[in-house]
């Protein structure tokens, strides 16, 4: 589909609103008999140009879906790696508006790879929920993960998001019990994000056994695809996660590589892009090699 020029009133910008990229991608992967690799990178980390180049490079390196982190000053569910990424991004001028602009740019060349924005509620409130949802859809965003928005508080965002065709992807945690699951799953669309550990990002990893028990339990309550995140670092872990569930989210491991590639003053070096994308390639190879047993 090519961009229509029916942007939001008065904006005169291209509009990439298109529904169902996430569902289409998971259907395609199911047909291929494999799970999804979903890299997470922080928008504007370490600078807008490098971040944009990374985003553009991800599909070619094997990303099936992309999670773009929206920098926030107080990322309460994140460990040191993503905290520092957010600080670098904010220092480089990162914002929710900046993340939307990146997606809009990305969409000029890629109309198929789903992009999910992941972050915290306050920047969205500050932007204005309604205008955010309109702009996000038009920029070609497909889904939202808002870490500090549990189902009990979600209506104010869920309703306008649904109207704009944005999937509101909920987190399910190891602490979410059977009694609570239906409430969490209600109104969820796109996919389910299973938080593999009770903890913050970039710390521990779940065992294979723990996942093998948790994911079937979750499947009994939903037909949506399930992605596993938090603690998925190595190609092997990604392959296992994509096998036991439908997708693997890798964040801190990639951002660690990015951080290590920076110079003493925190600036990207010529090899930054290649090192991160090479790692994505390694993860993608492993995920693609791991067939889903029927």
């Amino acid at each position, binding site marked *: 589909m090519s961009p229509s020029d029916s942007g939001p009133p008065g904006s005169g910008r291209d509009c990439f609103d298109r529904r169902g990229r996430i569902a289409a991608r998971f259907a395609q992967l199911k047909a291929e008999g494999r799970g999804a690799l979903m890299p997470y990178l922080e928008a504007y980390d370490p600078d807008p140009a490098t971040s944009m180049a990374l985003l553009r490079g991800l599909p070619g390196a094997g990303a099936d879906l992309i999670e773009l982190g929206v920098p926030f000053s107080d990322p309460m569910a994140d460990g040191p790696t993503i905290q520092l990424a957010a600080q670098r991004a*904010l220092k480089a001028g990162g914002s929710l508006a900046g993340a939307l602009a990146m997606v809009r740019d990305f969409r000029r060349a890629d109309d198929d790879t789903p992009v999910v924005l992941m972050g915290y509620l306050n920047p969205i409130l*500050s932007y204005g929920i309604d205008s955010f949802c309109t702009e996000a859809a038009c920029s070609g965003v497909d889904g939202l993960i808002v870490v500090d928005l549990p189902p009990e508080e979600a209506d104010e965002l869920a309703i306008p998001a649904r109207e704009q065709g944005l999937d509101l992807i*909920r987190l399910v945690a190891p602490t979410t019990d059977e009694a609570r699951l239906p409430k969490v799953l209600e109104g969820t669309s796109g996919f389910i994000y299973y938080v593999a550990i009770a903890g913050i990002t970039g710390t521990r990893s779940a065992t294979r056994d723990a996942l093998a028990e948790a994911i079937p339990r979750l499947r009994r309550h939903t037909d949506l695809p399930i992605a596993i995140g938090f603690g998925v670092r190595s190609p092997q872990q990604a392959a296992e996660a994509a096998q036991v569930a439908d997708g693997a989210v890798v964040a801190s491991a990639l951002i660690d590589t990015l951080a290590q590639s920076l110079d003493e003053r925190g600036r990207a070096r010529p090899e930054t892009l290649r090192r991160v994308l090479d790692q994505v390639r390694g993860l993608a190879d492993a995920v693609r090699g791991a067939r889903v047993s029927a």
Partner: protein
Amino acid sequence: MNQQPLPNSLRQGPDLRGRFGEFGGRYVAETLMPVIQEVEQAYNAARNDPAFLAEWRRLLKDYVGRPSPLWLCERLTEHCRAASGQPDKGAKIYFKREELNHTGAHKINAVLGQILLAKRMGKPRIIAETGAGQHGVATATACALFGLKCIVYMGATDVERQAPNVFRMKLLGAEVRPVTSGAGTLKDAMNDAMRDWVANVADTYYCIGTVAGPAPFPQMVRDFQCVIGEETREQILAAEGRLPDALVCAVGGGSSAMGLFHPFLDDEGVAIYGVEAAGRGMDTPEHAASLNRGRPGVLHGNRTYLLQNGDGQIQEAHSISAGLDYPGIGPEHSWLHEIGRVTYVGATDGEALDAFQLCSRLEGIIPALESAHGLAQVLKLAPTMDRDGIIILNLSGRGDKDIFTVAKHLGEQL
């Protein structure tokens, strides 16, 4: 804390969703939701359990030393009368002396309630955030008393400026973890405490130090702190035969203030003032005046007024007082601000320093820098009130912890 509020009372909040008007709620990651609901259920059971309340009251009386006195400040009153320059002006000033509590501040009131709750829930590991260190010291104290493991998150900046309290916590057997993210102050300590809780929900209770955080914390901490206002009410009726004309308290997160204010919210004749830290001035970028200069948003589990930039990024607060150095405020204050029941004003670093010294010399009481912000407002207000007026300040804490900071600002070497 069992009194039933009147139907059209301002004391009914929060609603079932933990909201005071539009403020409050429960904005946390899914991982934390179950444990927070567990805290809520445990608290609702405990607050209706006479044995729980009796044990808490016993601790307040025999361990904390309650009731705290209500002190008529004769020399400060005279000072303000003289300052008014008018024969009929200058209200009587009283201090509610929370600084006399064991551990030196009001924080212990709510800590003991929460630690009893944690015991009841079977959580052997306690975490807390602290700014001035008063809440950390109170939590470390209660954990020592009950034999619980205690970890206190404290911003690295605050570790430095509140060194005496850091050592106190260590003596009490707590582990103090300095937090270096952000500006290394209270906000950052609270982030790290939340991160710890997410990773340790099974055995850990998060003892929040103020009337903020996800529901039920704002209500629970307030309910426990209401002992301040309930005592004050009885004491002023005994001393003067009537209610005061004005109440004043500094607000950081706002627990000392909610504790004093709440029992008086329905008394129309009582004017109520919350004092925010105006730092280097409310019209400079360096202050902690969330209500006067912030706007509503979501942080640390609740919707409330926050200092934030145009992109919704939380800004660092500034105050000479570590306990007020926070870019948010408890959600019930946001509501009281919007409905206009409480007037929120500011006091600068300089005004607090002046009040700190005046109080020491005129009353022989060295106040906490937090409380000195409240006193600065009293010094502005009392001279404008009639001579037969009554104004009560919540003297929320003692200033021992602040002498190094104050000495530095006065250019003295200790």
